[in-house]
């Protein structure tokens, strides 16, 4: 089979599955599961085949005309280079594992079919982003991803929290997408094309074409999708969705799509804009790290951790190493999917209890889940030898070589990461059970454990770049080679290994000493309530946006509504209708049925007419 065909299969298998489920399987959960799962399997196999073809034949692109408006042509096309292939393999593989996990997790749910249909449509949209060869197509799939995220966050439609969260995620993302759309329009206007390859070629020919405005506008899309400051508010709330969704969409793939998008359009970024991205990422990494300390919901802690890791990716992208951002993206996808699935297994085992202070002592009840969770945790903290270590290490080295301040802030971020993850682990998994739910916790079934084990292996081994199959991750190796070639590399490397490991160990130990195993209350809250309250407030961003929406936007909306009601509806529509009614009322009074009246009116008419004629003459 041709590589293009495999790619088309990758795209259309999940779409077909989603359509079939939507039309025929709403009431047949078993059929929906089978369809969605086999679609995920087909995606993985077809991706593998496409990548094999790709390693033999090199970059692959194919496109066809989709839409023609005058001179403006929009193509639908596929573009597979090494970066895309790396991302494709990650998405299809993690997607497959999460599908398998979902089978166990969603057992007994009333709307299983809708859930699996949603997963399939998500896979379709996400793979579309990965393979898109121009900005317009990317945007189309970008919006589809937003839609499927909306649908899956709101899976538990009966819960008000989930409905609100799905709306919030959708609307906040639209804010960023407005910038993205404007960016595409400007890019077409400026370059005359939206094809990624053509853009790269144009800029290589004439670097003066780079335009900061376009890059900044396109970056808005990244800020929305990857939940960076100031549009980060939706991600923690999005945890209201089912846990496999949080793992797939809000940790491993969709939020990472923002970073992937940046890597795809890296050629458009002027050098002046990069430091601001680095600072943005660093800020988010720290901010989210602090926020995570004041959360008691296991998934929300992980959500803030995701925010903070996305901050790391943005930071290293801003430092000029897109490859390292991709590296961290991939390893993060493995261990964060593992952590979320582990959390899902815990939540499943504890009968939907999400508060860590009501867990405790889970290690004895759920040894496999806890063990794999621990591996994911250590990988996230960057313990030596695990996947997170390699990618975070590279990020820290890059930071150290460019800016001391960013370096120290990111090391502090690593310390925070270890701290809040330690807090989560000590409280939820060790000590004694703190509630009946934790007391009766049970280990999950094989459908849920298998993905955990595979992801745990990947979290351990994902960092050994040399072992990556099929020559994937070329861009990562290039950037690492660039890093190795730096003058101060060796000294910095030692410094980073020491600083990173120390930060990790100190964070974990401090969390253990401070919070104690299996605590029932947050000690920070009891000892220093104002500090806790400050962290819990998350710098009042939600309140600020609420204030804006209620006090400013609502006022404007009310004014517009008043104008609408008074002028458009009142004056134009009701007014004209009323006028006609009034005239008809008057005319009706003439229609008496009395012959003499008619004759009198006739006479009056004749007199008036003759008076008029005489006056004119």
């Amino acid at each position, binding site marked *: 089979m041709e590589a293009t065909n495999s790619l088309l299969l990758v795209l259309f298998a999940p779409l077909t599955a989603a359509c079939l489920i939507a039309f025929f399987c709403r009431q047949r959960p078993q059929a929906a599961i089978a369809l969605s799962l086999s679609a995920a399997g087909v995606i993985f196999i077809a991706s593998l085949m496409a990548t094999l073809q790709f390693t033999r034949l090199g970059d692959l692109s194919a496109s066809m005309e989709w839409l023609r408006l005058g001179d403006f042509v929009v193509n639908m096309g596929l573009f597979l280079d090494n970066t895309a292939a790396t991302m494709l393999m990650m998405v299809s593989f993690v997607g497959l594992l999460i599908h398998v996990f979902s089978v166990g997790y969603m057992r007994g749910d009333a709307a299983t079919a809708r859930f699996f249909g949603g997963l399939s449509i998500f896979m379709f949209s996400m793979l579309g982003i990965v393979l898109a060869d121009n900005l317009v197509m990317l945007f189309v799939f970008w919006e589809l991803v937003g839609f499927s995220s909306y649908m899956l966050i709101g899976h538990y439609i009966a819960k008000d929290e989930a409905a609100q969260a799905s709306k919030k995620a959708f609307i906040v993302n639209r804010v960023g997408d407005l910038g993205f759309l404007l960016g595409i329009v400007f890019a077409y206007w400026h370059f005359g094309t939206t094809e990624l390859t053509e853009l790269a070629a144009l800029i290589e020919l004439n670097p003066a074409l780079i335009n900061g405005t376009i890059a900044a506008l396109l970056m808005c899309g990244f800020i929305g999708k990857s939940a960076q400051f100031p549009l980060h508010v939706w991600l923690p709330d999005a945890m209201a969705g089912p846990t496999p969704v949080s793992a797939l969409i809000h940790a491993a793939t969709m939020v990472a799509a923002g970073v992937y998008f940046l890597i795809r359009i890296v050629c458009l970024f002027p050098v002046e804009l990069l430091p601001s991205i680095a600072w943005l990422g660093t800020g988010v990494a720290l901010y989210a790290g602090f926020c995570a300390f004041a959360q008691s919901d296991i998934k929300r802690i992980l959500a803030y951790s995701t925010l903070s890791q996305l901050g790391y990716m943005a930071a290293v992208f801003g430092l000029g190493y897109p490859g390292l951002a991709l590296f961290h993206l991939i390893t993060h996808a493995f261990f964060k999917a593992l952590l979320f699935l582990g959390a899902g297994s815990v939540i499943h085992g504890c009968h939907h209890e999400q508060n860590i202070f009501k867990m405790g002592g889970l290690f004895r009840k759920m040894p496999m889940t806890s063990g794999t969770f621990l591996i994911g945790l250590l990988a996230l903290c960057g313990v030596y030898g695990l996947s997170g270590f390699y990618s975070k290490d590279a990020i820290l080295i890059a930071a150290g070589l460019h800016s001391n301040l960013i370096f120290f802030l990111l090391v502090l971020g690593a310390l925070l990461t270890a701290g809040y993850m330690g807090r989560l682990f000590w409280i939820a998994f060790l000590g004694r059970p703190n509630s009946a739910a934790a007391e009766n916790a049970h280990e999950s079934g094989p459908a849920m454990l298998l993905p955990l084990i595979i992801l745990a292996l990947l979290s351990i081994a994902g960092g050994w770049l040399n072992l990556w199959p099929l020559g994937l991750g070329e861009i990562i190796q290039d950037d690492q080679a660039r890093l190795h070639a730096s003058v101060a590399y060796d000294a910095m490397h030692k410094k980073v290994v020491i600083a990173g490991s120390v930060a990790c160990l100190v964070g974990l130990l401090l969390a253990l000493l401070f919070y104690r195993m299996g605590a029932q209350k947050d000690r920070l809250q009891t000892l220093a309530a104002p500090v806790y309250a400050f962290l819990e407030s998350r710098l009042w961003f939600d309140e600020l946006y609420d204030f804006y929406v209620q006090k400013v936007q609502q006022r404007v909306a009310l004014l517009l509504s008043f104008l609408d009601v008074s002028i458009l509806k009142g004056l134009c529509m009701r007014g004209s209708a009323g006028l006609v009614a009034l005239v008809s009322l008057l005319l009706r009074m003439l229609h008496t049925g*009395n*012959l*003499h009246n008619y*004759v009198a009116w006739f*006479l009056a008419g004749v007199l008036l007419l003759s008076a008029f004629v005489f006056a004119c003459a």
Partner: protein
Amino acid sequence: MFAIGFLGVILRKNTLVLFMSLELMLNAVNLALVAFSRYNNTMDGNLFVFFIITVAAAEVAVGLAIIVALYRKRQTVMVDELKALEN
């Protein structure tokens, strides 16, 4: 003569009298036409008079028939009592 006819139409209430007044007005017009025709030495007016007489004859036939039908249905020929189009 036209004025008498017109006043008749306005003031009287019996449909038959109204009808006669209408005829009176038509004939007033006829007379005026003939007179002007004679005064101007042309035949145009006379021509119109013939047409009017013909149309008036037809009109009288139809009108009287309507009045008779009306009387049969309503037992009255007074305009005041014939205000409504339906029963």
